[in-house]
């Protein structure tokens, strides 16, 4: 954060707050704005994805030669945590379908697989539901409104992703939209309704229709609540505190299970499975470009690494989403997400001069780049800890719609309380936060990767969102593709008669690393992020750069 915000001066918090009030009172609102740069130029100059010094080309693996963020390359090109000798005496369990990851995608996949009659084990690094799904606030997209169509949803998604999304995947997802909402309601999920009991919708940035359905500003939490209950009420065998440290492969390179590190027993367990669904989420906790992140503690890109080692093709490894509205101040909450729903409901973003500088409902990459531009060009607000940002005009939203914040955004209210700010009176200081991995494992319409019997769903997969994701499409994707993968994996659960099930594919990785003269000292998957300590006196976060002890048996 501090690197990114080393900008040409800025205006102090108090001074900016003064200007904010004056502006607001004198003008009673803000006029429409036009960007002084075209969007492409804005992205090129200010979006973190375009910082050339952070991009490298991969030297080993199926994506050799492809562009990749340096920090992602470091984990993809690291040595395995385990060796064949570590598996001596390891217990072996067998199942039809192994689901790795206990977030929304993993649960949806596991539920569908179990419903199809497969024996399912779901392993999760922390606890069931401890995931980025619960952090999703704004809602879930589905074209259910009159006048809206899946075609418009498709067009919006493809456009927001800069035409780089996989059209087949987008088509499947948008067509699944309405059915996905129905399924969630059948599971028991609540949504905000109008007085007639119809689903309320709102508009996401970069879309042409009101298409986001939601529950308060904790849609993901509500979704996870019902998915957890459904999983608990099924025959799915859930293993908490059991991160996967490696996939198992057979002699032809098919995926055949995984090695699980049981944190409670402090030992490795082999799970042999006919099909494996990886739903481990994203990689925000790697803090790309030193950005704060909205991501959950477990988002360390484990699935990406495991799939890559087995030979799965990845895509768009240089494209990430920086959510425009992350908390910038106070620092111990930095990176915490403020839902796009606030902007959808009409809140403006204001710079330190009290001016609006971008249409807040542009796609996220444009808005994030616009905020970074304001800060870099000296129109940002300086928090008293060196953090910079711009205002999110919650008082303006409240003034126009009295009571809306308390009613619709209870989580935001609570965030204000934690920050000791009355957000109905004082705007919050925000700055983009690392939010989402746009790319990931290449999949087909059933979530199958390029490796036989390996499925990847949710944030670990890539292709749907192109190079920028719309609000509400992540929750739709995890359920849509989670269910698709679960059903297909269950159907595909044939006994293969493997000659050998092992971690031999690790030798290929080591071979390539050695032949390319790359260091073998770093190990991945990370499993747990670096620890950070918050110094309350100085109001700063100290990140420990050494490899953390993560409780795994190593």
């Amino acid at each position, binding site marked *: 954060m501090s690197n990114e915000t080393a900008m040409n001066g800025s205006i102090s918090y108090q001074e900016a707050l003064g200007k904010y009030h004056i502006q607001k009172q004198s003008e009673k609102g803000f006029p429409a704005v036009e960007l002084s740069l075209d969007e492409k130029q804005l992205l090129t100059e200010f979006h973190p994805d375009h910082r050339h010094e952070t991009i490298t080309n991969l030297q080993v693996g199926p994506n050799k030669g492809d562009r990749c963020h340096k920090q992602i390359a470091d984990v993809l090109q690291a040595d395995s945590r385990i060796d064949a000798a570590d598996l001596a005496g390891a217990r*072996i369990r067998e199942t039809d379908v192994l689901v790795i990851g206990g977030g929304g995608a993993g649960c949806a996949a596991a539920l569908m697989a179990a419903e199809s009659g497969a024996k399912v084990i779901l392993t999760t690094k922390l606890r069931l539901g401890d995931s980025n799904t619960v952090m999703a606030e704004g809602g879930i997209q589905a074209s259910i409104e009159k006048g809206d169509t899946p075609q418009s949803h498709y067009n919006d998604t493809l456009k927001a992703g800069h035409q780089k999304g996989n059209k087949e995947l987008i088509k499947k997802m948008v067509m699944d939209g309405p059915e996905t909402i129905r399924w969630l309601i059948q599971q028991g999920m609540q949504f905000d309704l109008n007085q007639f009991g119809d689903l309320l919708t709102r508009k996401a940035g970069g879309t042409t229709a009101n298409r986001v359905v939601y529950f308060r500003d904790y849609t993901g939490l509500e979704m996870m609540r019902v998915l957890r209950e459904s999983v608990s009420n099924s025959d799915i065998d859930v293993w908490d505190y059991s991160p996967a440290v490696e996939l198992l492969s057979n002699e032809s390179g098919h995926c055949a299970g995984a090695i699980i590190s049981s944190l409670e027993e402090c030992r490795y367990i082999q799970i042999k499975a006919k099909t494996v669904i990886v739903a481990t989420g994203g990689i925000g906790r790697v803090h790309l470009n030193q950005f704060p992140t909205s991501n959950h503690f477990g988002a360390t890109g484990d699935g990406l690494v495991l799939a890559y080692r087995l030979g799965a093709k990845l895509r768009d490894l240089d494209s990430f989403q920086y959510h425009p509205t992350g908390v910038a101040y106070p620092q111990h909450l930095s990176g915490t997400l403020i839902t796009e729903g606030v902007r959808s409901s009409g809140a403006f973003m204001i710079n330190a001069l009290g001016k609006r500088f971008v249409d807040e409902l542009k796609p996220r990459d444009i808005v994030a780049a616009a905020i970074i531009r304001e800060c870099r060009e000296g129109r940002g607000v300086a928090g008293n800890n060196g953090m910079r940002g711009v205002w999110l005009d919650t008082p303006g939203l409240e003034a126009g719609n009295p009571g809306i914040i308390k009613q619709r955004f209870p989580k935001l209210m609570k965030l204000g309380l934690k920050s000791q700010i009355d957000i109905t009176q004082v705007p919050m200081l925000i700055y983009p936060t690392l939010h989402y991995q746009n790319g990931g494992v290449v999949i087909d319409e059933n979530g199958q990767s390029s490796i036989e019997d390996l499925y990847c769903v949710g944030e670990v997969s890539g292709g749907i969102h192109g190079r920028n994701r719309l609000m509400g499409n992540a929750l739709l994707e995890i359920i849509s593709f989670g269910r698709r993968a679960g059903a297909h994996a269950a159907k595909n659960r044939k006994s293969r008669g493997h000659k*050998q099930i092992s971690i031999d594919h690790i030798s290929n990785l080591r071979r390539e690393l050695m032949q390319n003269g790359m260091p073998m000292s770093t190990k991945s998957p990370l499993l747990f992020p670096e620890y950070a300590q918050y110094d309350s006196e100085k109001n700063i976060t100290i990140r420990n750069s050494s490899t953390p002890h993560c409780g795994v048996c190593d």
Partner: protein
Amino acid sequence: MNNVLLHSDSQVDKLGQWLNGNGGDGLANALSDPDAIIPVLKEAGLRGLGGSGFPAYKKWQFVAEQDANPDKYLICNGNEDEPGTFKDAYLLSNSPHQVIEGALITALANNINKIVFYINPEQKVSLEKIRNAVEQWQTSNFFNQLETALEKPLNIRVMASSGHYIGGEETAAIESVEGNFPFPRGKPPFPAISGVHGCPTLINNIETLANVPHILKNGAPWYQDLGRGDSAGTKIYCLSGDVLKPGVYELPMGTPLSELIYTHGGGMLLDKKIKAVFTGGASSTILTPKDIDVPLDFDSVKERGSSLGTGAMIVVSEGTGIVKRVTEYINFYAHSSCGQCPPCKTGTFYMSQLLNKIDTGQASQFDLESLINLSKILPGSGRCHLLDGAMHLVDSSLMHFIDEYKSSLRP
């Protein structure tokens, strides 16, 4: 290295290229004097390279002598399904013409009129390449000349095998070609007397056939000189496991194991020490570091109590559990047993259960003793060699690594 079968002139897709390079002369020589083919092979010392090491000419003589039945079959065995073996797939997909020319010469030598390319269905590229190449041969002049020499129409069929491991066994392949499940048959009658539909049938491995045109072209002395020591010809070794550069290497028959691993294979991965080498895919036995100097030919490896098999060398480094490896192989055998012979069906299953128990640290001394006893009494009780292969592997691992088994037992 790569002087004959893997020579770049041999690795061509178009028949024209093959005939302009290494190809055609062998078949032309054969056509000019078909009766000389078998004597030339005998003098050259070509052996069955699918694992048996049985002199090729002997097998051919049996078939050539049969004249009661107007039809005779040649099965070109590309079922290749053993762990660590990938040479036939490589040959079929990279140099289909030398394999086909070998098959045509073989047919001529034995008066065979029905050739079946029997290929593992997983090897889709091989199937496509060989189909394509067969079409090219069928429209060439050679094909007419062959039919004239045989005095009957020559039929070539390319078929995908059932994909079962056991389908590579000779009599199982015959069943497969007849359209049945690949249950191995009892012998006798031997395939040379009564094979596919009761006709005399010759079954040769792909690598064996690929050598034939080169021998007929260059002569027996040339082939003998290719080998080292008393061995003749070259061998394609499939090097895999914990080496830096795994792959297929065509080297003189009798090249020492150390040379294969360190000179050609780039040495050990992470510079670890060698713990064991599983030879010839799973149906063979284990070599240990003391055997590192062994010349890799059929007889020398046999002297060390192991066998060369298909020429696959799966190198295992220190830090790898032998019990786990053997368990994986036996799991595979248990799954692959066709179930015809009760000792094999139940024996491999029970061995697999015992090994899994030992591997996961839950077995007692009694279990280990059961394993040892089974490995002594089971060999020889199956119709084919699947059970024997499995037991030899267990036996070999018990001989070299009994301490590792003991240390895996429950305290």
